[in-house]
């Protein structure tokens, strides 16, 4: 726990301290890098709360590591000055899409067209989350009432559920996306194996609820009572009663965390059996 301020500079700077202006950003992107060429990441903010973006920033020192070595942050209204959706490798979309707001729909489609991998980042984008409860009627825009998970409007490649998602998960996805797009064959295979279940989640559908534990785990004869779901729920809606989850449906916000964290929603042995190596690799990448 050393104070960050006394940390020595790790590597020689590759670009001058300067204003972030458009021209300079372009120059920087063409510059030689000490590591393989970075990928570009952006964050599109729709009807979310910015908690997802704060989550990304909550990698703390690791955020700088990611930005120094693996990814240029080319878009995120809250963090950088770029005003309009640019081309990017990975676009994290935060928030659901308000169908009654033309700009939201347009920006989402633009982001899809301009990105290689589009991620539903967080529960609002993936499942609607609290915006599933929206029903309009509030000034000054009482007509804004239809909010949908982004996959109702565009194709989505990958899901990162939960409200908020976790800094470590978005970090892992960013590192894996880098390996997928810039790595050698072995790294690409690893990244594909890691990302597959998150891509399958995107295919599974855009409805989530604590009820999934009943429908898709207990009712399917798969629950073994580990308690993960109850430990995961960010609103404490799940308790364990005689070894099975009970969901307080009047508390659930429909974030999808419990189901996707449950080891019986999916469990990929090809990745899990290498947990030590993969965790070391991610740790190493962040050092």
């Amino acid at each position, binding site marked *: 726990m050393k104070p960050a301020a006394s940390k020595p500079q790790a590597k020689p700077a590759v670009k001058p301290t300067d204003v972030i202006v458009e021209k300079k950003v372009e120059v920087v992107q063409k510059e030689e890098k000490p590591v393989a060429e970075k990928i570009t990441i952006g964050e599109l903010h729709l009807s979310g709360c910015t908690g997802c973006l704060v989550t990304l920033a909550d990698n703390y020192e690791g955020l700088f590591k990611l930005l120094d070595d693996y990814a240029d942050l080319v878009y995120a209204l809250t963090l950088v000055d770029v005003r309009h959706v640019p081309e990017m490798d990975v676009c994290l979309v935060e928030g659901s899409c308000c169908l009654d707001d033309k700009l939201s729909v347009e920006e989402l489609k633009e982001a899809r067209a301009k990105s290689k991998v589009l991620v539903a980042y967080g529960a609002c984008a993936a499942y609607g989350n609290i915006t599933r409860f929206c029903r309009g009627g509030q000034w000054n825009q009482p007509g804004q009432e239809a909010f949908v998970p982004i996959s109702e409007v565009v194709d989505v490649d990958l899901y990162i559920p*939960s409200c908020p998602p*976790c800094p*470590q998960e978005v970090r892992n996805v960013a590192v894996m996306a880098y390996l997928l797009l810039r790595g050698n064959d072995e790294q690409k295979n690893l990244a594909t194996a890691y990302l597959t279940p998150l891509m399958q989640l995107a295919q599974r559908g855009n409805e989530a609820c604590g009820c999934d534990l009943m429908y898709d785990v207990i009712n399917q004869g*798969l629950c073994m009572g580990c308690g*993960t779901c*109850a*430990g995961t729920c*960010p609103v404490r809606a799940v308790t364990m009663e005689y*070894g099975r989850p009970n969901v307080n449906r009047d508390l659930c916000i429909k974030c999808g965390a419990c189901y996707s964290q449950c080891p019986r929603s999916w469990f990929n042995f090809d990745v899990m059996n290498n947990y030590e190596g993969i965790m070391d690799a991610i740790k190493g990448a962040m050092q």
Partner: protein
Amino acid sequence: MDVLGNYKSAISARSTDKDILKKAQDGGIITTLFAYALEEGIIDGAIVAGPSNEPWKPEPMVATTKAELLAAAGTRYTISPNLYLIKEATRSYGLDRVGIVGTPCQIQAVRKAQLYPIGMRDVDDKIALALGIYCMENLSYQALEAMVEDHCNQKMESVKKMDIGKGKFTVYTERGAVSQMPLKLIHKYVQPGCHVCLDYVANLADISSGSVGSPDGWSTVFVRSTKGNAVWDGAIKAGCFETKPMDQVKPGLDLVRKLATEKITKNQKNVDARKTVGLKADGTPKGLRNPYESP
């Protein structure tokens, strides 16, 4: 992967701590390792199956002292949802280094929470020691009640110890009575989720342990991860365990491998059978969800 998982060494061992052996199920491996790790500051606390207000019904708890570990020692053959506390341990309990014990499926859950920390913020690097216990199957509390009270004809609250071994489920009462029932009768009581379980000896734990393979009162231990290895070496140096090489004990690793193979083969069949359980209109089979393929 082999049915026994990756491991660096397999040892037969028993705790040197008499207090622990008195309370523990087998060789007291789990309780002793946690007590050692607490002492050494390797963990700040451990999530174990603590007592509750119903007899033999475990309740997950965070133990931060040896006394608390002792209160949770011994096997309860029913579900203790230990993962329930995994995030909370790092929150209001204030642990930075968490120990956790669990059945193979629970250790799978731990690793998933670390590799895919979807709703498990700031947990992945705080899991300091994950200890696994072998597991053939688990039971609901009501099932355990039926076994003890109906088949073995004992009251839950009078039971001192329960054990599974040599083809029997055995209960020992406070007053010294011993009742048994054959294991094959418990099949109807096994919780359904266990029928698709493909891990017997907690392949993903740092260290895993169970009674099978070693003599009574001893445990078979697999030291698996780098972290587990360091902890095991330290505990041995500190004199926490008596050990014997696995190839010098009876019945030995072969029995462990045999049981593991049986379990996994049987359950793999169950997993496959789920694919054709139903019938589609066109006469082809209709399947149930397979967690090993996709969510």
